[in-house]
């Protein structure tokens, strides 16, 4: 939860310059799988962040009934929510876990800021240092004519190291 407040601060400080992408890396499957599936299913209806906040606000041992209750509170289509939880989300969570493990993630929270690794629950200044550094590089690329929509693909996905 503490890192969640740091991320809020980052969004507040950098505004539209920063996008945050959430990928599941389930370290504690008995506890974290149900909320991970619920948050994924909520995302399919555009409510990921609301579900994420709700789950972390009631930190503890999560149950399916509890997650269903949150989904109802958020006004989700329950049929689609349950279908996504039992179908596409299971596959997506496995996929995300593999993507992160391939580049060396071994625990959470783990951050890749324009592909640069920052591990653990760090205070805002640690993020700020790295964000400012990669922001400068991104702005330099943009000034050379690279569209913002292609920055991540060109600078990170294509040029980045594929495995640890």
């Amino acid at each position: 939860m503490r890192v969640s407040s740091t991320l809020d601060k980052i969004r507040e400080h950098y505004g539209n310059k920063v996008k945050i992408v959430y990928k599941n890396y389930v370290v504690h499957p008995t506890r974290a799988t149900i909320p991970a599936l619920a948050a994924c299913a909520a995302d399919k209806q555009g409510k990921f962040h609301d579900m994420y906040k709700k789950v972390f606000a009631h930190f503890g041992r999560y149950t399916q009934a509890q997650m269903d209750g949150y989904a109802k509170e958020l006004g989700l289509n329950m049929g689609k929510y349950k279908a996504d939880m039992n179908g596409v989300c299971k596959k997506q969570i496995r996929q995300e876990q593999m993507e992160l493990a391939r580049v060396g993630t071994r625990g959470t929270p783990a951050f890749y800021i324009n592909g640069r690794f920052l591990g653990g629950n760090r205070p805002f200044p640690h993020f700020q240092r790295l964000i400012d550094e990669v922001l400068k590089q991104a702005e330099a690329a943009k000034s050379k004519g690279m569209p913002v929509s292609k920055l991540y693909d060109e600078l990170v996905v294509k040029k980045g190291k594929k495995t640890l």
Partner: protein
Amino acid sequence: MKRIGITIGVGILSMGVAACTKASSSDKKLDQIASDVAALKKQLVGDTPANAKGKAPGAKGMAGRLQRRALNNNTPLGRIERHLARMERMIARGSMRGGARGRRPPRPDAKTVYSVPLNNSASVGPKHALVTMVEGFDFA
């Protein structure tokens, strides 16, 4: 010959443990293992033909039984043997703590850019931004 081999092996190992113990005398774990090795050495060396001279005839039989038991991994001696083998590897690496670190998986390098695809993962913020942060998280 087997008994001599075991005796030499234990002797070499105990020298290694002694050297390691000198390097980090405060390490309680090493001390404990060193005392285990000393006890085992006493048990085995005490039964070599030279030492068995003048002893009861049952001494030679005991060494044989120990050797046979050592072959069986489920016996306490087998566990000690495995423990000793692990110790040998740790000593070869330099120290107990160094060895433990060596087994940890490598971490990503802070200066390297890693290719993390975004695919259809959940996100907040603009569709495209100058900086994209990927957070690996779990609800626990």
